[in-house]
């Protein structure tokens, strides 16, 4: 039998807008006094009419430079912010009504915020979460054991939180945010400030958690490695507007006007001027950047006129593409 529920969107956003009023004044004493009498305010649209939807179990990367409106969007979707206009629906609830049934099913992890009490072991805070989220004791023990195992927490949860390293604390935070088995996870820079090993650990964990529980994940990160490892689909926003929503591979296709050709030549001195832009040359190994449309022509030319040992055509690194996306937009 076909059920609609399994594929109907978990998160739906339509024309969502959030406008902040910002007080403005110039520097200096005189401006200070003047602002006492009349305050100038300016409207800033942090999120400016975005629409998208996520189906159950999707892991979507939410990308954009600082101030693009990512965190504002996540806060609206987790019920911490009232939008100025537009519609939103998460798991059948309007997030900013903050119904208990809604809050029990979601989590918001912010890499730069913490919920665990600083002076006592994480396990004490977990026990409180068990009570607040009314997690049955057997479920609680099972989930905790699973999280301890997946995140390799060991005895960390029994040490006072203040004695943990940043990475250890983040792992404990994540475990604390997932004890109630949320079906929707909003992750705002979960790997910020962590070393590469710890980043990888958390990344693997998110993928595994998603696989096991079919949780829907909307994730922001400045580390492209996170996005590449976890997200097939990305949503890119800039200045509060949606720039791209689709497969990560398509993003590269669409926004990178270049391809990278790596060619290995028998003759290390063969001149390549006029063929294409040389990015790097190391002995016989040359990296060329060519306009996408010219890739076939340049490749054919190289093979026809040069003693080629090896040749590969690649897409540029994702960081470069993202940079390109934002650069194009700001023009």
């Amino acid at each position, binding site marked *: 039998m076909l059920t609609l529920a399994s594929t109907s969107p978990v998160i739906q956003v339509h024309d969502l807008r959030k406008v902040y009023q910002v007080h403005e004044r110039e520097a200096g004493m005189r401006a200070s006094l003047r602002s006492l009498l009349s305050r100038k305010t300016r409207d800033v649209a942090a999120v400016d009419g975005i629409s998208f939807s996520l189906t159950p179990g999707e892991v979507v990367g939410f990308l954009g430079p600082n101030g693009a409106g990512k965190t504002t969007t996540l*806060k609206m979707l987790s019920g*911490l912010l009232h939008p100025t206009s537009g519609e939103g629906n998460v798991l059948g609830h309007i997030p*900013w009504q903050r119904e*208990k049934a809604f809050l029990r099913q979601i989590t918001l992890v912010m890499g730069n*915020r913490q919920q665990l009490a600083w002076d006592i072991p994480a396990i004490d*805070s977990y026990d*409180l979460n068990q009570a607040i989220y009314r997690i049955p004791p057997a479920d609680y023990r099972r989930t905790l054991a699973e999280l301890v195992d997946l995140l390799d927490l060991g005895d960390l949860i029994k040490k006072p939180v203040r004695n943990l390293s940043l990475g250890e604390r983040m792992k404990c935070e994540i475990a604390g945010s997932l004890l109630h088995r949320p079906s929707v996870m909003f992750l705002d820079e979960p790997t910020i400030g962590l070393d590469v090993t710890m980043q990888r650990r958390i990344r693997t964990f998110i993928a595994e958690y998603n696989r096991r529980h079919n949780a829907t994940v909307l994730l922001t990160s400045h580390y492209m490695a996170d996005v590449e490892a976890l997200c097939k689909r990305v949503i890119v926003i800039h200045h509060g507007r949606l720039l791209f929503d689709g497969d990560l591979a398509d993003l590269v296709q669409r926004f990178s006007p270049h391809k990278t050709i790596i060619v290995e030549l028998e003759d290390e001195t063969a001149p390549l001027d006029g063929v294409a832009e040389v990015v790097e040359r190391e002995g016989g190994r040359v990296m060329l950047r060519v306009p996408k449309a010219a890739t076939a022509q340049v490749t054919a030319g190289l093979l026809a006129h040069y003693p080629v040992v090896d040749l590969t055509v690649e897409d540029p690194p994702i960081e470069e593409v993202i940079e390109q996306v934002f650069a194009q937009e700001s023009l």
Partner: protein
Amino acid sequence: MSEMIPIYRAHFKRSFALELQYRASLVIWALSALVEPVLYVAVWRTVALAQGGQVGDYDVSDFAAYFLAVLLVSHLTFSWIMWEYEFRIREGLLSQALLRPIHPIHSDIADNLAYKLIALVVLLPAMVVMALLFRPTFHPQPWALVAFLPTLALAFVLRFLFEWALALSAFWTTRIGAINQVYFFVLVFMSGRISPLSLLPPPIQTLASFLPFRWMLAFPVELVLGRLTPTDLWLGLAAQLGWIAVALGLLTVVWRFGVRQYTGVGS
């Protein structure tokens, strides 16, 4: 209601663990609660002795009893929530609380009660010492002693709800300190903390009866001293319940608008 019991149990467990992390600071805070009443006993004692041992209807040992009771009732009913809210909102700590499927007031109640219970370990011996030094006299009827606990509990509920509602003004102004100062100034005079209300000028006594502060402190204190009639008791209980209803209504409305404001402006 019964579903709240495991939540409170878990809260108490965590609050106790947190309080016991800072034993030294706890002792200092608890002892600092002694300073004010001890000072007032000393001052009023001196005044009484200079006037032949009596001021109004209080003699030296009545003053000792009064401020000893003030110390206990004050400790058991005070809250520090108004000082905490500004920080909570500015640092975004409220966001964490708003993500949870429970009203944040519950964790504040648990924290408050946990601290008070632990601090009693320091305060009770100190009160014994104070009693030995100042020789207080209490003359309560048995019914007044029985009624003391409920009036004390209602005084706590009233003050807590009232101050929690006021603390929410932090939603609109991030400089709540000035409001706190004004509030505590009025509270100190009108609740009977600085002197028994019967020693204040009659118009102020009348005013105090119409404000909520008297029912937060002076009422249970006078009751345990044996200064109230059964009629006073019933009137007082009615006043406490009435003000609790007002505070609860205020809190509900301010919370709803406050959260709307918070989530509107963002933090």
